[in-house]
């Protein structure tokens, strides 16, 4: 029996889109301050898992966050408990400016967050240059930076990031990696959903592989590197 204290424990989680039963018993743990990668091919169920943790789809099973079962809560309640979510579609608010997008990341409680607008603009100077521009006209890379920063403005303690490097130029992928390291330095836990191994193997502490809507591998990046079978069966295309 494992009695270790985790920040987030997902236990036997099932998820549904209407009548279709997508996840059928998924177990995932995240320690405080850890970067955990969740890898898998398209359709493996990774995004559904992130949405299930956020309370954006119907679920059965437990999601324990810092000792409290949050399964079945509304997404805004989960967000207020300190879990941030960066959706895969780069869902910026296109008609609003960059600055307004960032303002919408703030939750507006009394507590002052650990991040300021200035921190965001230091991390991604492009966003400062474009702070009064409509977000809809930004490039794909800039929009990705914006969604990452928008969620940070809500001061999460754990952040779920869905395919942040999808379709980005290598230089921008490195910026995203640097952003993730900065989160780790500030003690934030990260669940990084990716398809490619690239930055996930560089920066994560542990790795889960999802295939066919279940967890098929759990270990360190080094262990995954050593396991050619898993990579061949569940990751390579």
């Amino acid at each position, binding site marked *: 029996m494992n009695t270790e204290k985790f920040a987030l424990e997902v236990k036997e989680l099932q998820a549904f889109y209407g009548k279709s039963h997508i996840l059928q018993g998924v177990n995932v743990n995240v320690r405080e301050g850890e970067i955990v990668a969740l890898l898998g091919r398209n359709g493996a169920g990774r995004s559904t898992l992130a949405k299930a943790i956020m309370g*954006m789809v119907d679920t059965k099973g437990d999601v324990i966050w810092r000792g409290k079962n949050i399964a079945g809560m509304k997404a*805004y309640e989960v*967000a207020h408990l300190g879990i941030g979510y960066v959706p895969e579609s780069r869902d910026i608010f296109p008609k609003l400016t960059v600055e*307004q997008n960032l303002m*919408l*990341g703030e939750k507006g409680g009394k507590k002052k967050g650990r991040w300021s607008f200035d921190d965001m603009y230091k991390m991604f100077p492009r966003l400062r240059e474009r702070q009064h521009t409509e977000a809809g006209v930004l490039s794909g890379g800039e929009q990705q930076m914006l969604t990452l920063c928008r969620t940070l403005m*809500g001061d999460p303690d754990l952040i779920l990031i869905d395919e942040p490097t999808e379709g980005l130029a290598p230089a921008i992928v490195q910026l995203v990696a640097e952003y993730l390291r900065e989160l780790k330095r500030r003690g934030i836990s990260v669940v990084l959903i990716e398809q490619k191994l690239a930055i996930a193997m560089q920066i994560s502490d542990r790795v889960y592989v999802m295939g066919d809507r279940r967890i098929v591998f759990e270990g360190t990046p080094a262990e995954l590197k050593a396991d050619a079978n898993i990579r061949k069966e569940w990751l390579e295309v």
Partner: protein
Amino acid sequence: MSVLNGVSYGLLLFMLSAGLTLIFSMMGVLNFAHASFYMLGAYFAYQVSSWSNFWVGLLIAPILVALLGGLFERYVLRKTHKFGHVPELLVTFGLSFVILEIVQLIWGRTSVDYPVPPSMSGSLFKVFDSTFQMYRGFMMLVAILMLVCLFLILKKTRIGLVIQAALTHPDTTEALGHNVPRVFAIVFAAGCALAGLAGVIGGNAFITEPGMAQSVGAIIFVVIVVGGMGSLAGALVASLLIGLMQTFAVGLDWSFAGGLARLGMDITAETPGYSLLKLKLSQVAPILPFLLLVVMLVVRPKGIMGTRDD
């Protein structure tokens, strides 16, 4: 003069269509009961003003209507939402009948005497032989004040920012920690309050009777389709357009027969289609908005400022 009358009517229509448009963006379906809240505003104002005076009604009636709207959203619409669009549509349709029946039960089937307050019943000014009623001016003032408030709230406040985000991207907005269901209830209640206020100032300018919801409901439906579903700016343009069109048409007794006769044609009762040609513009005024609707749907189905491409 007709211009001012048309603009004041158009602004009244916009108070209704603005709320309906916001609620449409939010629910994704038309709220069939929207004009019923307009009617409730008029009847509440009639009742309150008969107990005290018009000004108390002006204040209280929209608040009552907003409360009812908020309760309806919270306890009926929100529960229906997960079953999809058709049940939502049906439930608002049902509500419009319930309100109609209740209004008739309480206030009867004929119109009630809800007068313009005496302090407002004179004419404001007179040009040639047409007058501009003081009350029409008051209507314009209230409508403009309301709409400026609406604009400032939407564009300049934090809650307005959250509303703008929630209307287009509800899931993302909620995941950022905003209580989107509550935002929707607020938008619904505010839309109802605007409709109720329009009822307070429209009910005595025109007439307060059980048929008022249906007649005005049809017009604002035209307004939001012509303006482009979901577009506030489009709704404003279409409201003014229809307001002006209606007001001008009522005041004109032109007919095709008259026009053709002036062109030197000999039009008599024997001319084919005479019964159509002799119709005066003022007689067809009530159907003009619907003609506009049909023309719009043929020429530009997404409306003046619509962005939907489906």
